[in-house]
Structure formats: structure tokens, C-alpha cells
């Protein structure tokens, strides 16, 4: 299949020029490059502009509640580990409403890939500050500018032990497609924070703003050096690094639980389960624990 074959015919509800288009394209390229069968791919999303993406991609889709993509993805992956599960979510969805799942999904380390469309704003609800909004950015609610310390999601993910931490830029589609591919191929929880200009509500972090700041990490960068990577993960301002910021080998949830070694749960035959063993414990001759 070619990248274009992963497109659906649904009308796209994003603003023309929105950074989300680049992400959709990159995802299509990545899926094509990996020659994944749409039937074996599951896209899980929450709610927000970002979260509409699965409707535009040929793959299975669960478009759930605002903030709750990660637990849905976890449940689905555990039920059928053969599914290639990707989560597409926003900075509000993933780091705001869904912050607790973000923490614990990293700790759980299922083999899933999470793309955060990070436009540093709440797009769908028309422009309130998100956890990544730059300090001082004025909105209708943050009338004196955003006051809370902005979140460095990549650094936080590292502090939580994430094994694959990357940043992409929706304008650099090819690079992003590579990152997505690397994330999917990584065994474990892969986080890709994607700089995604919102042309309607983020008047600060524009294409131009990002263009002036981003640079791509090259081969000389050692993504395996944790201390160095942690500094990189926090780099934000005049220079913003793109690429795999940190990567380490890790044991996945599937491996630790033994799921990896067995048939997917969904393939188990449940038609006539013999409950002899637990029933024995109820009987007179039960062994006491």
C-alpha cells in the first residue's frame, strides 16, 4: 500500500494550514513504510482536534473520551497484543485531563506508540492554555498570560522511566514518519511529542517560530546517554531539538506478565470453561489456605 491508500474519504475538519495535516501525512507514510495491514492497526484517540485523526486514516479506530485514550489503548493492547496500537492525542488530552494515565502508562510500558499533537493550546475548545503553553501567552481565560510552569513532557517522561522519548515537527513530515516508524518498532511505550502549529489559536508558536528554533539531532548525538538526554529533553527556547531524545532497552508489560509468550487473550476459547479447581475450594474437603 502507498501512503495515500491509508487515507479515508471523510471530510477533514481541521483548519486549512493546520499542523495536524502533516502528522496525518507522516502517519500514512510510516504505515506504508512498515507495510502494515490496516486491519492489524488500531488508532486510539481522546477528544480534541488531534484526536480526530483516526477518522482520516484507514485502520481500526477507537475515538474515546477526552483524556482517556491511554487506558483504552492499554486495555485493547492487553486483549490483543497482535494489534499495532498507536495513540493520537493532544497536549490537553494527554498531559492535562489525561495526566494521570500519562504517568502510569509510562510505568506500565506496554508496547504502544503515542503521538502527542502538541500545539501548546486547547484547539477544539478555542484557545485556552494547555500544560505546554508558553508562559505569558494571553488567552480569554489566561487574561494575564499563562502563569503555570510549562510542562516539559519529554523530561517528565524520562523521569518516569520511559524508554523511547522523541520530538517531531509536523512540518518535517519525512522526519516525523521516521520517528513514528522507530516508535512503533521500539519494544515498549514510545512517546513522540510533535510540535504542531495551531494557526487559529496559537499565535505565538507558529510555523515561523518553530522554524527559527528547531534543529534535528544528528548521528553524533547519543540518545543512550541518560544524563545528557535529560538535559536535551528540557531544552526549550532558542533551540528546540528534534529526533529521538532518549532510548533504552526495556522489558515490556507483555514480557513481564508473560502475555508475550501466549496467544492473545482475544483468541482464547472461552466456550466451556472448567471451574473444577476453584469449586474444589468451596467443598468440604477444601485445602485451607
Amino acid at each position: 500500500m502507498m501512503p495515500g491508500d491509508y487515507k479515508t474519504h471523510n471530510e477533514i475538519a481541521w483548519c486549512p494550514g493546520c499542523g495536524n495535516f502533516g502528522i496525518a501525512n507522516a502517519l500514512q507514510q510510516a504505515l506504508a513504510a512498515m507495510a502494515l495491514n490496516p486491519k492489524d492497526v488500531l488508532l486510539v484517540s481522546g477528544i480534541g482536534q488531534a484526536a480526530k485523526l483516526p477518522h482520516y486514516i484507514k485502520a481500526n479506530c477507537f475515538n474515546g473520551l477526552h483524556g482517556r485514550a491511554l487506558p483504552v489503548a492499554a486495555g485493547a493492547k492487553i486483549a490483543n497484543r497482535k494489534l499495532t496500537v498507536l495513540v493520537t492525542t493532544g497536549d490537553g488530552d494527554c498531559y492535562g485531563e489525561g495526566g494521570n494515565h500519562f504517568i502510569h502508562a509510562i510505568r506500565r510500558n506496554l508496547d504502544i506508540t503515542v503521538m502527542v499533537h502538541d500545539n501548546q493550546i486547547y484547539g477544539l475548545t478555542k484557545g485556552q492554555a494547555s500544560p505546554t503553553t508558553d508562559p505569558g501567552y494571553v488567552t480569554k481565560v489566561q487574561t494575564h498570560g499563562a502563569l503555570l510552569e510549562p510542562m516539559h513532557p519529554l523530561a517528565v517522561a524520562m523521569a518516569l522511566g520511559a524508554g523511547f522519548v522523541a520530538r517531531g515537527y509536523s512540518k518535517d513530515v519525512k522526519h516525523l514518519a521516521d520517528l513514528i516508524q522507530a516508535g512503533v518498532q521500539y519494544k515498549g511505550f514510545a512517546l513522540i511529542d510533535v510540535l504542531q502549529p495551531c494557526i487559529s489559536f496559537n499565535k505565538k508558536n507558529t510555523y515561523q517560530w518553530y522554524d527559527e528554533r528547531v534543529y534535528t539531532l544528528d548521528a553524533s548525538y547519543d540518545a543512550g546517554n541518560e544524563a545528557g538526554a535529560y538535559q536535551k529533553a528540557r531544552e526549550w527556547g532558542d533551540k528546540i531539538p528534534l529526533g529521538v531524545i532518549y532510548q533504552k532497552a526495556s522489558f515490556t508489560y507483555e514480557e513481564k506478565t508473560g502475555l508475550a509468550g501466549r496467544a492473545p487473550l482475544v483468541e482464547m476459547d472461552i466456550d466451556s470453561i472448567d471451574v473444577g479447581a476453584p469449586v474444589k475450594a468451596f467443598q468440604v474437603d477444601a485445602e485451607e489456605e
Partner: protein
Amino acid sequence: MSTELTITITGEAGQGLQTIGLALCRIFQKKGYYIFADQDYMSRVRGGNNFFRIRVSQERISAPRRFCDIAVCLDKDSVDLQLPFMAEHGVMILDKKTFKIAENQARFFDVALAELAQQTGGSSIYVNSIASGLIAGLMQLDLSLVESVLSSAFGKKGKDVVQKNLAAAREGYALGSKKQEDGRFQLEPAGAQGNWLLDGSQALGLGAIKAGCTFYSAYPMTPSTGIMNYLAAYADQYGVVVEQAEDEIAAVNMAIGAAFAGVRAMTGTSGGGFCLMTEGISLAAMTETPVVIVDAQRPGPATGFPTRTEQADLDLVIHAGHGEFARAVFAPGNSEQLFMLTQRAFNLAEKYQIPVILLTDQLLADTIVNSDPFPLGGMKIERHLETSGVHEKDGEPYQRYQLEASGISPRRLPALGAGLVYADSDEHTEAGHITEDAGLRKRMVEKRFHCKMQGLKKEVEPPGAHCLDGCQWVLMGYGSTYGVMREAAGKFKPGQFGVLHLSQVWPFPQEEITRALQHAGRVITVENNAGAQLAKLLFRETGIKAFTSILEYNGRPFDLDGLLSRINTEVRP
């Protein structure tokens, strides 16, 4: 000789009440007695006052009694607390020296428990086995029975521990035998041979295993945690994944994700956690994902009484979640219903592609009862999955939400059937994509709400009706009050009290109830809540007004004597 006794072990949390209690239950089970053992405990790990209360009987029983015949007091406080609940000729085993009690009372059976424990085992923990022996002695049960139960109970801890416990038990047995010459605590032989002994969490958990539930995600919350523990214990054997979620929101959303991907998934919690799940329940309804949610009730609001019992979430579970959609709510009344209806919950959830709620409570969860063996082959697994692929002929892609008169669209699983599965929490087209269309919206609401409710109503679980025709009064309840209502009704003259018990409260069995009450007397609802929620629901759904409601909302379950006296004062039959 008596036909029944109530034995209470009481003391601080951490003193081993459960050990004695469970051992006694096993002994009674082996002798073929019927057992009803409820637990009263505080929200703390050590100290305070707890009790383990065993009613043991020659006949079938299904409720606790208020007054106890033998009380074992493990600390001083429990003596004072237990005294008002002693039967007239009841005896209270206590250690006056250790408790520093000078006073004498006829019912005191002073045993130097602490001293004896030191002597026989070298540690105060042997008090438990002494007490077990004492009771067996008082009741004149075979010593060998006690020995065999304690041997297997302590088997894992090694020979030495077993021996010391047996010695302690023998010590107690001898003392008990000596005390009871009048045989007042001897029970007539009984015929409950072959019965099972289990608590409600186990009955529900077994139902889930039998139903092929292979995914349980939950966040610990009393009194639902027993289900998680039970499933975790059998997880390896049955390939069940028990995932402790970071919170209840994650728990329900994980279960939804797992169910979407095709397994039978369940989550469990209590009221506060259930509140947090309500948005997820609405999601299950919108995406038409079958999921089973257990609400093991405890008294609210907020943290409330974490370890106690109540039935006040009825209104909540029926109306929880924003928007309008079909759901089913079961309220099992005993272990067999817990087992059967859990299976039924999965079948219904998958047939109608809806959230199904199992409403239980602390009383059901923690009470150990015996039961006839469950009908293990009775309930078939009905998954209602579409595998034929008919809907993709002529190149038509699979439509997850295809409109059908029944409201039920053919359900396929991602990766497993033909076509792609799009599930959406926004209002959507038949194909599962976001829509803003007014007409389609209307049809989708009718699909999710009216059509499915219609189907659900047709297969509602019939209420349990006992001696209704021509009766003067009807005791009506749902969930855990089943047992106490039936026993109470049986204490009156035939024709006075019938019983009507709902094991499914939603859809409300409107026709069935109306029919059942046609030739019956006035309705008295018996509810463990303050709002007479069932009485109100009955009126709203059938127009039938309850004569009165007997309500208990102090965090404690009804006991048989309490209910009888409430009936006598509030109904005067």
C-alpha cells in the same frame, strides 16, 4: 439440644478473628450444618472493634441473628460492646485477668486465654486455637474435626506450628466440654452435606471466570477488592489478566478498550469509584462496547463508612452517565444469583453491546454462607459476534453502527473479522465517523436507547416471588435483603407475608411485578437505605404505592430479629 446457634468472635482488628471464624465455619460445614457468617469491621488494620458472627443451624438460613449464644471476647472493649447482644442464656468467653475485669456475671465463662496460650504455644496467637477448641467443646463437636480443620489451616506453616495449635485446641476443647453439661449448645444433626462454603466475592468471581472474563481492571476499593483478590488468585490458571489501574477512570476505560478488542472485560469498585466511572459508562453506551461494572455498595456519601453496608446506590446506577442509553442493572440476592447473574451480565452486555451493572454490597461481598452446588452447566456463553462477513458483499465496507430495528448492529472485532472497526464517542454515522446530522442523531438515540431498552425489557430476570397469592403483606426488596426477608416472612403464619425480590432492577420488571402483585397484599419495601429508593422506583414504574418502607441506614445489615421487630411495630400484622 438446639436447632441453631449464633457464635460471635469479637476483638480488635489484627487479633485473628477471621482465623477462628473461618476454622469454625469449616468445622460446621463438615458436620453438614447451614452457615451464615457475616463480618463487621472497622476501617483500620489494627485495634478498634470488629466481630465475626457465625449463625449455624440445622435448617437453611439466610440472615444473621441479633443475639448471640456464644461470644468469644478477645479484648476488654469487646466485652462491653457485646453484652447488649447476648441471648438470654448466652455465654461469654473472656479472660478476666488479662482484661482486668473484677466483676462477675452469670454468663461469664472466664478462661485464662492469654496464660493458656503462653503455656501451650508460647505466644498469645494461640488464643485463637484455644477458642476454636472451646467452642467445639461447648457444642460437643468431635475433637477430630477440629484437629483436621486446624491441621489443614496451619499446614503450610510447618509441623511445629500445627502441633502447637492442636495442643491449644485440645486445651480449649477440654475446658469447653467441662462447662457444658446441659447440652444447651449442642446442635441437632443437619443435612447440608455436599454444600459449598463461600463468600459473595468468590461467587461473583467464579461467575466471571465461568463466563470467560479474561480481563479485570480495577482500583482497590472496599468492599469490591475481594473480587480482584479472587480473580488474581486464579489468574494464571484461567489466563485472566488482573490489572490494577491507576484510578477508577483508567479501570473502566481499560475494560472498555479490552472489550472493544474482543475479550469479556469487567471492572469493580464501590460508590465513590463508581462515580468516577460514570463518564466511562456513558462512553461504553455510545461506542456500544459491552462491559460489566460491579458496584459493591458501601454507605456514602463521600468516603462514608468504608467497611460497612448499604443499598443506597440504586438511584445512582440507574441514572449514572450523561445522555440517554440502555443499560441493565442486576441486584443478586445470594451466592447462586451472584454466580448466575454475573454470567448473565456478560451475555446481555454482549448481546446488546451495552454496559451492564452488578449491584452488590458489603454484606453480600463478605458474608460466608453455604450454598447448594451451583448449576455449572446452566448458562451458555452467548457472544453475538458477527463472523459471516455478509455485510461486506458488494464492496460495502463494514459499518459498526449499522441501523437495525433491534438497535443491535452486527459486531465485529478489530483484526479478527472482515473490515475495519471504527468506534466513536461523538455522535456518528453508521460507519462510526463523526457526524453533525440531525436526522441521523435521532435514529442513533433511538437505536441506543429505545430499541435496546425494548429488547432488554423482554428478557428481564423475573423477580423472585414467594407465597404472594392471597397474602396479606408483601416484603419487597432487591439485592442483599433477599435472605432476611425470606426468613422473616417464614416466621409468620402462612398467608400473612409473601416476599418479592428483584434480582434485576433495570429495566424495571414492570409487567412481572404488576402481575406478581395482582393478588397479593400491601407492599412493604425492606431497604438498606434512607430514601426508600425501591418504593419510589416501584411507584414510578408501576403506579403501585408501597404501604410503608422499613429502612435501615446505620451502616449495618438487617438481622432477622431486628426486621421481625420492625415489622411488628411498623406494620402490626
